[in-house]
């Protein structure tokens, strides 16, 4: 899905240049010329990132940034003529994720926007609930069920199940399972098969499907199509 960028700048020439550069880079761009209309555009468009000038008139960009921070976490990149270090510190203190000074290079702006978007996605919270067929796992409560039947799993079996359900369409290597469940393991990697076998048995005894299907020489896959990811 195309990311939407909101550009707020009182200079039409700058808005035009930002809009063209970001559109060329594949983003959808909406623009606003002052603080209040920028905040309105934020609520109307729910952008993925905001490019914000500081010198906007009565409501400056710092105030816009503070107001947007009070209602959400959308990344904000300042693009401003204020180039002093103290200006940048004030911008970051107001909640900016990055700071670019004018004059700016359009391709550098595009690069910064891409980086901030990727950084924001990397910081997304890990999933805590997984569902696949009759299986449900809730990481926070460390509970696993087959339909309504609670599974009595050891810590190791539970962690193995979470790793499989977090990668429902991939084969998870033995090494990845060792690192993910045991942290570091210097012994025989057949320990994975031992615990996987017990997990399989418990799921089947509760009426569930066969899981932890071995892929020779590689690792294991969940073994059933997930109902939800």
């Amino acid at each position, binding site marked *: 899905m195309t990311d939407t960028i909101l550009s707020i700048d009182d*200079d039409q*020439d*700058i808005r*035009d*240049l930002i809009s*063209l*550069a970001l559109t*060329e880079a594949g983003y959808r761009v909406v623009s606003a010329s002052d603080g209040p209309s920028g905040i309105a555009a934020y609520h109307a468009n729910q952008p993925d990132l905001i490019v914000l000038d500081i*010198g906007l008139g009565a409501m400056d960009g710092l105030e816009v940034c503070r107001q947007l921070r009070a209602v959400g976490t959308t990344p904000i990149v300042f693009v*401003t*003529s204020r180039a002093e270090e103290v200006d940048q510190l004030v911008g970051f203190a107001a909640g900016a994720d990055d700071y670019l*000074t*004018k*004059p*700016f*290079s*359009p*391709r550098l702006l595009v690069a910064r926007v891409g980086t901030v978007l990727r950084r924001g996605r990397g910081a997304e919270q890990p999933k805590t609930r997984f569902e696949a067929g009759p299986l449900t796992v809730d990481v926070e409560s460390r509970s696993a069920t087959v339909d309504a039947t609670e599974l009595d799993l050891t810590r190791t079996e539970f962690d193995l199940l979470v790793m499989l359900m977090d990668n429902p369409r991939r084969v998870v290597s033995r090494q990845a399972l060792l690192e993910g469940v045991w942290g570091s393991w210097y012994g025989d990697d057949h320990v994975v098969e031992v615990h996987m076998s017990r997990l399989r048995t418990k799921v089947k005894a509760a009426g569930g499907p066969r899981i932890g299907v071995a892929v020779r020489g590689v690792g294991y896959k969940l073994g059933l199509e997930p109902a939800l990811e």
Partner: protein
Amino acid sequence: MSGGSSGGESDAVLAFIREQQEAVLQRAIDELRSCPPADLRGVAHAVHGTLGSYQLDAAHEQIVTLSAVLADPSTTVEAAEEARARTVATLVSLQPALHGNVAS
């Protein structure tokens, strides 16, 4: 004068910049000419970013010089107005080179 720092921009962005340079410079001249003395520093600050972003490097340098004069606390109102007039005259002298500018 198109400022040599194309910096590897995409063809579309570079074409747009070149097509807009003449109008951007004209707007900067108009704003510098017409603003009241009390607003001159702020206007210079604003057009500085725009001229540089549109790769109008020579014009941008003139604004940097003007801003330095305006930021000096010893600069009198008369000296500021002289600096404004000099800057506007220099910017006007840069216009012919941009006339009919198109992307190469």
